């Protein structure tokens, strides 16, 4: 090494700062984008739910099941019928509102059943392992192996086309779907040291499941369920479209589409309007699910 110079300062204690990496404006844009991606779908969904469930309580809507043949095929923005009437003279907007009720009733019921039954089974399977897991997993596998729609069709056909039966038919698909997610998430948690620590602290098993497992798998279940809700609504629509679900004159988005199919080329709005409603709802659910996944960092 070279001969040392006494007291040579080798590094300035205060080097000049580098150009700043933080672009404040870009940061604000990022934050804004993230907030929008969460709150816009929330707003849309609240609006849709309000229209479907609250509006009829406040405003008297024309009947959604019976109509006056005289005023059939009215175009949108006709007096008394905001979106017009269909072939039988039934008000389209009312059908949309009550159809929306059906969509959400079925969707939320199936999701809740899925979480309660499927989630519980999944957690039990993963936590206790062994033959319990083997049995439950095989049941899930069998149910999932059937194409959802075919399975729902068969069940709905067998039970009869009412809303309740549609719910149970779709639940057969929803339960294993949520169940597997719950099982996977619980398996991930089970290996972690804090679970062993809880056992060593003396906590009883049921309490471990309730207070340790459930809060930690909650984000995964919620994000999955939101996406699943969209799928269930679509499936419900498909069932109705095919004629196996809600039957006319009771309206649902699916059977509205089916109904309007025949005059699609002439008056496309009968198909377009419920389709757009479906699209917006499912898109909002998906966006919300993605935004939550982004926020919570789950897969």
């Amino acid at each position, binding site marked *: 090494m070279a001969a040392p110079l006494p007291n040579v300062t080798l590094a300035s204690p205060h080097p000049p700062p580098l150009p700043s990496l933080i672009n404040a404006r870009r940061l604000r844009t990022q934050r804004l984008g993230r907030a929008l991606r969460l709150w816009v779908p929330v707003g849309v969904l609240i609006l849709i739910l309000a229209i479907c469930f609250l509006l009829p309580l406040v405003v008297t809507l024309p009947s959604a099941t019976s109509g006056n043949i005289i005023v059939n095929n009215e175009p949108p923005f006709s007096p008394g019928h905001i979106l017009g009437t269909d072939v039988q003279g039934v008000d389209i907007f009312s059908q949309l509102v009550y159809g929306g009720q059906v969509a959400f009733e079925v969707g939320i019921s199936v999701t809740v059943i899925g979480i309660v039954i499927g989630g519980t089974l999944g957690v039990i399977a993963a936590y206790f392992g062994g033959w319990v897991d083997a049995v439950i997993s095989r049941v899930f596998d069998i149910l999932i192996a059937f194409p959802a729609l075919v399975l729902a069709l068969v069940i709905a056909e067998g039970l009869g086309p009412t809303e309740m039966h549609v719910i149970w038919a779709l639940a057969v698909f929803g339960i294993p779907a949520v169940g597997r997610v719950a099982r996977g998430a619980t398996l991930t948690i089970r290996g972690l040291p804090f679970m062993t620590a809880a056992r060593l*602290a003396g906590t009883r098993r049921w309490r471990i499941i309730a207070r340790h497992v459930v*809060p930690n798998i909650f984000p995964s279940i919620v994000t999955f369920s939101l996406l699943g809700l969209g799928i269930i609504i679509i499936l419900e629509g498909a069932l109705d479209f095919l004629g196996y679900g809600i039957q006319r004159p009771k309206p649902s988005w699916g059977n509205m589409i089916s109904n309007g199919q025949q005059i699609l080329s002439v008056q496309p709005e009968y198909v377009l309007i419920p389709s757009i409603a479906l699209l917006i709802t499912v898109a909002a659910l998906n966006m919300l699910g993605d935004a939550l996944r982004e926020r919570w960092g789950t897969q």
Partner: protein
Amino acid sequence: MTVPEPSATPAGSEPRPAGPAKPATGEPLLSVRDLVQEFTVRERGGGKVGVVQAVSGVSFDIMPGETLGIVGETGSGKSTLARAILQAPRPKSGSVTFRGTELTKLRGGRLLQARRHMQFVFQDPFGSLDPKWKVRSIVAEPLVAYHTGNGTARRKRVNELLDLVGMDPARYAKRHPRELSGGQAQRVAIARAVALEPSLLICDEAVSSLDVLIQAQVLNLFERLRAELGLSYLFIAHDLALVKQVSDRVAVMYLGKLCETGPGEAVYREPLHPYTRALLDSIPSTEPGAARASSVIEGEPPSPINPPSGCRFRTRCPRATDLCAEEEPKPRELAAGHAVACHFPLTEPPPAESAESTSAENGTARAAAPDGSETTSKAVR
């Protein structure tokens, strides 16, 4: 599962110890005999490949107030040993007597009661804390599980515990683990572990993932708790210097068996087992140019599925002979409280047919010269 008898205590009073009374001095606090723990190793399809005996007949005692350190490298089975003592999962065979009670025979509620006085600190400070719980719930969990006191008493106790481990309750009680540093998270884990006033604390690599300065803080905390609460420790680590620093007695583990057990100073100054010697020599010292190349051990640890016959260390031992392959050495006590499992412990000259003696003859001496004069040219710059 039988419901454990409630040991609810009136508010504010100290929790009563459940189970049999503390054994009189002279009796070991923990007594482990011939402990065996196995895993089946499966290949991907599920077919059985073999059985790994992670712990193969380990025996030792811990007296009340004593710290026993177990040092071993990867594959030695030391962590499995710790879990087996806790019965989580249960060992395949052997006995674990804690405070006079045989743990392997207990089930459910009675095991819970007996195990109350034995607690565990994990290696990963964050992994051992539920990320969704607040610090005060985490520390209170054992109190809740054993129905100790009511809400007010528990809150008070949690604050005491946090103070004990050097964390200000006002600032930390309502935080989540993600808001803590590694050292702080480990302190919370320790606070939880001592909540029920255990007699024995098992620490499995409890400081290995912490930075050096934080590690020193936590080690000092262990010492303070030892003095204030009269705790005994089973301290498991791979760092021999660390283990010796905190322990009264040290046990060296290799591939499921204990090679050497003895007072820390004795094991360090006069190791009896060649593996202990190899461990000591491998530790980089802060003396530059020290005789560090003296005994770099050759070879890789053998697979635990198929351990060598006889003495398990023989494949890497410079002193191994045919006897070592045929007969497994049993532990024997050569000095006061100092036992070794070796046919040719280091107090004796190397056996005639061993690799050490032949290589010494050939002059390719990689074994330690007694006067430590083996240095490589690297040391001199």
